């Protein structure tokens, strides 16, 4: 009764969640460590949130790290000065980044294309600059420290997400699950269909009677909120926030994760984040010239891989997975 595509999607969904739920059990065997897995989730959420705007509405923002960083700083500052509750701090941090996204979005949504991307970059840098300069509040170049994620008190049980990396992973996974469920739901509604129409042909959407600017602003804001949430989680992961979470390098990394994983696919960016984070971790421990390699990755992905991992046919995917596994075995 289910169509072929629907079946395939269900299989993919099941596979992904099985993998995600069992990470603590198989990750140590591949030479990874828990924080790496959590980091993949955090950046995966950031990438999927950006993809809401980029892959599903067709609008490029290259300054989304601003909201990522604002979420991080917001959460950190909340934990430092305002509250002992991790969820509340996370909520406040998300609010900060999301509201700024809403405000900035309203300002720039009248322009589009390359120009829009430029403006998002420039605005992103404003916040980097503020974080850098406002030393007394943000710690400037040294970053914001002096806060730690607090254990969660459920009454009968306290989840020590501070010291127990596995528990923290599951906390992040829970947040991730809720966030992606909301995004997935939105994309299935008439609102989501309208966004797709805008992506496919903006002018046409306009002449179908769709107020395009308003919809793009909404998509931008939703995307901003969830990226901000990811930033908050990042601050919790590191117990630290610093200006590099705000600058365009960070933005670029998130974008490449989306492209690497596959823009047209809902879960693609998560896969892209996994590949990128693992590669980055591996390369920076191998060589001091990891920057060149990262840059080369950008160039190669764009030239030879623009559809990304999940945008390719399944056969190619298996080939690549095979060669990657060989590489890991050869070097461990």
């Amino acid at each position, binding site marked *: 009764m289910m169509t072929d595509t629907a079946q395939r999607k269900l299989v993919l969904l099941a596979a992904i969640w099985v993998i995600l739920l069992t990470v603590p059990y198989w990750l140590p065997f591949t030479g990874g460590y828990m924080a790496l897995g959590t980091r993949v989730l955090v950046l995966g959420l950031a990438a999927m949130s950006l993809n809401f705007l980029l892959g599903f509405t067709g609008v490029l923002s290259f300054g989304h790290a601003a909201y990522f960083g604002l979420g991080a700083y917001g959460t950190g500052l909340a934990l430092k000065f305002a509250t002992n509750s991790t969820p509340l701090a996370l909520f406040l941090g998300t609010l900060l980044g999301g509201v700024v996204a809403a405000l900035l979005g309203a300002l720039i949504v009248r322009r589009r294309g390359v120009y829009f991307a430029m403006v998002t970059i420039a605005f992103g840098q404003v916040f980097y600059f503020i974080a850098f300069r406002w030393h007394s509040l943000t710690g400037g170049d040294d970053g914001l420290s002096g806060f730690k994620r607090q254990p969660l008190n459920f009454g009968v049980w306290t989840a020590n997400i501070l010291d127990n990396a596995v528990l923290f992973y599951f906390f992040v996974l829970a947040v991730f699950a809720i966030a992606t469920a909301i995004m997935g*739901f*939105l994309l299935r*509604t*008439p*609102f989501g*269909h*309208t966004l797709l*129409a805008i992506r*496919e*042909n903006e*002018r*046409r959407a*306009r*002449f*179908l*009677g*769709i*107020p*395009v600017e308003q*919809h793009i602003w*909404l998509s931008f804001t939703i995307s901003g909120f969830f990226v901000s949430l990811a930033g908050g989680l990042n601050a919790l992961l590191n117990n630290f926030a610093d200006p590099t979470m705000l600058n365009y390098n960070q933005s670029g990394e998130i974008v490449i994760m989306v492209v690497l994983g596959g823009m047209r696919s809902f879960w693609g960016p998560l896969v892209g984040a996994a590949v990128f984070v693992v590669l980055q971790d591996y390369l920076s421990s191998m060589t001091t010239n990891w920057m060149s390699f990262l840059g080369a990755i950008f160039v190669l992905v764009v030239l030879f891989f623009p559809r990304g991992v999940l945008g390719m046919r399944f056969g190619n995917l298996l080939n690549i997975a095979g060669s990657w596994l060989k590489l890991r075995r050869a070097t461990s």
Partner: protein
Amino acid sequence: MSGPSENLLDVRNITKAFGSLVAVSNVSMSVPAGELHAVIGPNGAGKTTFFNLISGLFSPDVGEIVFAGTNVTQLPAYCRVQSGMVRTFQITEIFPEISVRENVRIAAEVAAGYRLRPWISGAETTAIDKHIDEVLALTGLSGNQDRLVSELAHGDQRATEIATALALKPRLLLLDEPTAGMGDQETYEITGLIRRLHRNSGYTIVLIEHDMRVVFHLADRMTVLDQGRVLAQGSPQEIAANEAVQVAYLGKAT
């Protein structure tokens, strides 16, 4: 001067220049409800720019556009669509990777005001489906409705575009060269469709056309544009007899 008008569409003295190039100059046109009005003219006469001005892709430098008694000159395009002014494009731009029915559904959902909704009820879905069925029957696409648009013949693609336009519940249809790029058989079919929409369903239609057979077959009245200006306006018989028009088209007096 603005004032009350019984015409569905009133275009008054609009002019549009791009830098030093004047695309449309002091053009006026009135279309009463129920009329099929053709806009013709040699290449570069400004017909598409004229349509773009009416539909709101950009604003005229001078002049007014009054639709159903409301001055829409400064209104953004999507508002005009929502008030019932629907246009098609010369190059078919329907979404190619989805089915005919899905294309029409997007339009129907927008027309029903469901764009922002997170979910719609069963009753509302039924109403939309009924509307889609009607539009598909009207345009003769019921048999093809589940096929991907990219797989269809050119004529059926154009019909799909007209179907999506109809799904938007238009009061005025602006058709930009509906028979462009078509062979005789397809031209015949599309002309038949437009004729049915006009005669049987009573739609008000303005169309840009190059094919004179189509124009003379369908139009109640015509406007001839040349180099951005109105050369002549009137019934097909009057236009056919107009010498200036003959010169513009044929380049010489007959």
